[in-house]
């Protein structure tokens, strides 16, 4: 099959099966974004917590790293005995996966932000919480956002595998395409997945720039 016919096959399949494609995109997005949201809600507070209790830091980051080393397909498989199949186990597995970059960047960002500013803040009478939200978070925001972006791109990619445990999403199209030796159908799943990853990366990049305090913009 040459490139031209692959492209037309991809376009035709997408148009023919548009309702199904759209459906897959939406469920793919919902799985990915839900996992990300949970990972952010856990990762950032946990990251902050370990900056305050440094002795836990290496243990917690190591645990998160261990999960990261498990191949994604295996991690999804592990979920079945505990949570069965469907969206729930998929979201849990993806959350675990997305946790490390967010956790680690939050920790490093805060730990590495300007000591002098922190000392000045403390010495002038900021509470620990004020130091956190008035100094540490604004100063480490770009690093934390970079972690979230990494996690986003990764999650949207890995979420295609969630179809294996019955969670739906663009993986459905890809695996069906593989099974029926239909490259057009594979692309119908793969291309939107890639586009989504790039799109969300750009959205977060934009958000990051908007959130970065003016004095720190380059």
């Amino acid at each position, binding site marked *: 099959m040459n490139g031209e016919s692959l492209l037309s096959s991809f376009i035709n399949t997408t148009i023919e099966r548009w309702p199904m494609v759209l459906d897959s995109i939406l469920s793919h997005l919902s799985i990915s974004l839900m996992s990300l949201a949970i990972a952010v809600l856990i990762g950032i507070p946990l990251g902050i917590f370990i900056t305050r209790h440094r002795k836990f830091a290496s243990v917690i980051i190591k645990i998160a790293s261990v999960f990261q080393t498990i191949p994604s397909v295996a991690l999804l498989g592990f979920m079945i005995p505990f949570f069965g199949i469907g969206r729930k186990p998929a979201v849990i597995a993806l959350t675990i996966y997305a946790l490390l970059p967010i956790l680690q960047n939050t920790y490093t960002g805060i730990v590495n932000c300007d000591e002098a*500013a922190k000392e000045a803040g403390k*010495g*002038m*009478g900021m509470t620990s919480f004020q130091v956190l939200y008035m100094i540490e978070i604004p100063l480490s925001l770009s690093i934390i956002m970079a972690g979230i972006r990494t996690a986003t791109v990764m999650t949207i990619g890995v979420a295609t595998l969630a179809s294996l445990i019955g969670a739906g999403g663009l993986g459905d199209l890809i695996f069906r395409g593989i099974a029926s030796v239909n490259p057009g159908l594979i692309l119908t799943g793969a291309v939107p997945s890639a586009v989504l990853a790039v799109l969300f990366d750009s959205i977060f990049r934009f958000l990051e720039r908007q959130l970065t305090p003016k*004095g*720190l913009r380059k």
Partner: protein
Amino acid sequence: MIEFKEVSKVYEDNFEVLKNINLRVNKGELLVLIGPSGCGKTTTMKMINRLIDPTKGEIFINGNSIKHRNPVELRRNIGYVIQQIGLFPHMTIQDNVALVPKLKKQDPKKYLKKVDELLEMVGLDPEIYKNRYPTELSGGQQQRIGVIRALAADPPIILMDEPFSALDPISREQLQDELLNLHNKLDKTIVFVTHDMDEALKIADRICIMREGEIVQLNTAEEILRHPANDFVKNFIGEKRLNSYNGFDFPPIDEFISKAITIREDKGLAEAINQLRQNRVDSLIVVNKSNQYKGVASSWDIYRNYNDEKLKIKDIVRTDYACIKENDSVEKALIMIKESNKGYVLVLDDNKKVKGVITNGSLVKLLANKVIKDN
């Protein structure tokens, strides 16, 4: 105002940074804590705003122990300036300066006006600078902001931890001058940590010299220079400063001696006139055969008595001229020149032999050298 009573600090590894410190900082004074690194000066300062708590002993502010004061509330009433400046890069200059009043929830209208006043006080136009960010300012300007940030909530006490030591020498001098100005104007109690003796001598009301967790000497700059407590203090101040305190750095006297034009006392006046002309001087130093000082013959006396051929130099000699020994100080010579009104002073050795003269010209030369050296 601030009082340390038997304060000690021992770290977990049993290292004793402070050993039984007793210290009083008077209201409105600028006290400098100085000493080599590791002497405990910064630790002492940080105990005042409870960034570090003592292991033993107590600290009182206005007679009240701060042991149980809420550290956050305490710190908001004590200005704090650090070496690394520590401005918040994500906040404008205005927001940086206004931080403590904001934390204290004061009325924005009031403190924003105060911010403008403070900026003007350190020579930064508020209209230009208040909406800028710290990175847009030079190091010297940044630390000016650091200093006025500590003043914004008008605290009675200000702690400064080597605030100028990271600045270039010119900015440092300027900021020291400005600090002195502020201190004169505002009547704050300032505790200032430094390792720079010149800085301490320049700004301090009193200097507290510390070493290995103990106070070695606490007194005014004047007293410390005049009566260093021990060799450590002497070394720390430095031989050069101890000398330069006595006026300024004078070179030894022999560098200023010009050759004296002498004449033997048994010579006649015609010979004397010849000497005056040849050497273009207006008086001759009179000596005996063994070159010992006998007095001075002025050209006025020589010309006036010239017609009397019988007169020898020894008949017209005057002895009311100032003489000093060659090992006296240049200072003494200068004072004598000034007091004698003769424009010069004679330098003799222990056997009254004439070594030379020190003239007004020498004084000019000395000052010129000093000016050249300083630039």
